[in-house]
């Protein structure tokens, strides 16, 4: 039997990438994997770069590579996902990602220990690693 659906909007600074009813959301917050069904308790969560899966139904799943962001469940059960970037996995360019990952690793190695520069480079590194995993389908 089909599950109850709820409204999900995925927004990036460059515009809306998804706005539809879904049965379930699966993604990753900084504290771990999370699945959201209809009538979830109000929530504000911080998202890590990972695969975002939007289940229109059991068989129809929209998959996106999400950058860092936030997920909010409103009182009415609607979900708003704000992410810095969201790409279709097929659009990820593995060569470009390796290049970016290499640059982030270099920046990390070059930065002083415990500096903001190093912390930010580590964030970049994690994002490109996550995207690489999504691009390679594992």
């Amino acid at each position: 039997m089909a599950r109850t659906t709820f409204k999900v909007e995925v927004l990036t600074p460059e515009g809306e990438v998804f706005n539809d009813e879904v049965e379930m959301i699966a993604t990753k917050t900084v504290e771990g994997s999370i699945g959201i069904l209809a009538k979830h308790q109000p929530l504000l969560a911080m998202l890590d770069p990972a695969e975002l899966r939007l289940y229109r139904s059991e068989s129809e799943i929209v998959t996106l590579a999400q950058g860092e962001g936030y997920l909010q469940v409103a009182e009415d059960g609607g979900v708003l996902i704000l992410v810095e970037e969201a790409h279709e996995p097929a659009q990820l360019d593995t060569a470009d990602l390796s290049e970016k990952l290499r640059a982030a690793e270099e920046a990390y190695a070059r930065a002083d220990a415990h500096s903001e520069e190093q912390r930010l480079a580590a964030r970049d590194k994690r994002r490109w690693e996550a995207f690489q995993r999504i691009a390679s389908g594992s």
Partner: protein
Amino acid sequence: MAQRDVKNRIASVKNIQKITRAMEMVAAARLRRAETRIAALRPYAGAIRRMTRQAAEAAGDVPALPILADREQEERVALLLVTADRGLAGAFNSQIIRAGIRAGDDHVAGGREVVYYATGRRGLSSLTFRNRAPEQAFTGFTERPSYANAREISHALTAAYVDGKVDRVEILYNGYISPMSQEVRRETLLPLQKATILDAHEDDAHAAGESNAHALVDYEPEPEEILERLVPDYVEISIFRALLESTASELGARMTAMRSASDNAGEIIDDLTLEMNRARQAEITQEIMEVVAGAEALG
């Protein structure tokens, strides 16, 4: 000038006019897209503001983050000049360079050291030419900046600020008013003011989603930790907005510059056509006089 020379000049000016007309139309089409992108940022920026206020309310206050801290002594100031990769856009690039160097000289006169940062190849080459080589330049995207570009710039400036390499960060860019008018804006990016975050803003009206003001909300992780990432997002969003506005301004300026170039070419063509007709008339008159003189000689 002989008739043939004038004809050649008219043809070459007409060619130039074709190019400037084409550039004007390309800029106009791109400008519409750039305007759409400015509008597309609003719901996101508004929702980020709303979430920040919600988390700040839950946390009791905005935590004392390094990017919010004013420095007692400002010794070094970073200036980010937002220019374009290309020229042919009237005063677009030069007015930023001029305002940036003036702002820099003011800081130097006040006893502060200035570190330049630039976006756009024009800014990079002009600053280098004027012996103010930027610490870091970001190029190759000014016709279509992405959020990732803004994030890269923001990370470089935030790291410089938090790691104590600079004590203040200012941005200079062409703010977009309309296709015909842009204004140089100078804003302080860091330290970030708490008021900037919590006060009402025009983006609020465009915010997506609904408010959670009275519900019992779960936070993952604690609201204080969420704010540690939400607050720095403001710097990224401010830079992204400046990049988008600068792009729209660049295209508006190019459109206007190319339109007046086309109009000028039109005037030159009119003048040259008049000159050509005069030359032709002179030749005809000359021929008639020769014919008449010949006829008289025969008679």
